[in-house]
């Protein structure tokens, strides 16, 4: 009986994870696409370190960071993938969303300040929870994007 409850609980979490995860991902992508198109006119580039800016009057650091959690469905899929090996495709969209969201946050902040371009952009990721400690909770990823806005 106990076993049955546990198994039922597992499947409920799995289904909940799948549908809520899909819903929020869809919503997020919609917002990302819309904002990317809106901010397309400001270039972000990853060169610019140790170079002089002839046309820049002012420069400032802008940081965009986002934390996204995996859902139960992704966690189980990845756990199964760990046994088999191969590309963890369920995490790809998660990281893609993280990178683009972080860049957008940085960009939007810079646009508000009045930047006409963002130089020397760098991306970093970190994991939060999940792998550390008791290994039981679902993990999250943090993506940080930072760059120098000039105007």
């Amino acid at each position, binding site marked *: 009986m*106990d*076993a049955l409850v*546990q*198994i039922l609980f*597992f499947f409920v979490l799995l289904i909940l994870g*799948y549908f809520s995860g*899909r819903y929020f991902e869809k919503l997020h992508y919609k917002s990302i696409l819309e904002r*990317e*198109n809106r901010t*397309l*006119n400001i*270039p972000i580039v990853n060169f610019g370190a140790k170079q002089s800016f002839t046309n820049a009057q002012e420069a400032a650091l802008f940081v965009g960071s986002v934390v996204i959690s995996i859902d139960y*469905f*992704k*966690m*189980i*899929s*990845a*756990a*199964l*993938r*760990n*046994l*088999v090996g191969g*590309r963890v*495709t*369920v995490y*790809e*969209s998660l*990281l*893609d969303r993280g*990178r683009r969201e972080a860049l957008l946050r940085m960009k939007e902040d810079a646009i508000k300040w009045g930047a006409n*371009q963002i130089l020397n952009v760098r991306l970093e990721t970190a994991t939060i929870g*999940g*792998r550390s400690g008791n*290994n*039981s*909770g*679902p*993990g999250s990823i943090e993506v940080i994007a930072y760059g120098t806005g000039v105007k």
Partner: protein
Amino acid sequence: MKYIAKKIPEGINVTSRHPLLNFAYLLGTVIAISVFIFIVLGFVAEWLVIRVSPETEIQMGDMLVQPALDEEITDDKRIQYIEKLLNSLLTPGETTRLPLQVHLIDSDVINAAITVGGHVLVHTALLETVKSENELALVLAHELGHFQAHDPLKSLGRSLVFMAVSTVLGVGMSESGGLPKIIPLTSELTNLNYSRIQERAADIYGFYRVVSHYGHGGYSLDFFERLSKGEGRLQKVSQYFLTHPLSQDRMNDLNAEAAKQGWKMEEELTPLPQWLHCPDMKQCEEPVKE
């Protein structure tokens, strides 16, 4: 250099594979591989476990039977009666690889079992429920059949393999926090489960011993018939009998076997000792029957 805003192309870093398809593929692969490993290792374990020396089996049995003996009744005349009945069921010249030890357990769950090391567990509720010695003899002979076929040992071997496989899977899983409790739980479910083939072999063995002891198979199937009919009434029948009900099919099998061997099925009933349901077989009140 002039900057021209271009639309960002999609799907470079995301594989367009449906997550459910991906999940189904993974689950299928993992299940197929673990089932394969489980089956192969299961056979290896069975092969190894019947080669365990009697001394080791006694040690294992003593360890494993301990938790079941909390409610044991010792020093009771009924134990001697059951022991005598059990040993009389062996055909002349047949020996058990270990001496059998009967344990009478005070419990209102109708059950009888045999474990590794030749420990026969008989619950008092079983003694209150059986109506003739023939019935009791078939239950005991069925358990004896399991023991002679090394079934408790094989089952233990398989459980160990299952635990080992699930631990390995658990290690693989827990690294990213997946499936932590599901697999160990399923191994609990397999505790002391025998396969259909093992059950059928034990049935035939038990029936054969009962027939050779009494000269006929009459009345011995009545207990199982009552169990399968009166499920509502016998609420407290143990899990063991519920998961392995002697269904009509199995009774038919035994009746067919009797017909094939020319065994008589209608003969005299051998009564039980009058006070079998009473402690120490001293006169007492009838148990309350609903």
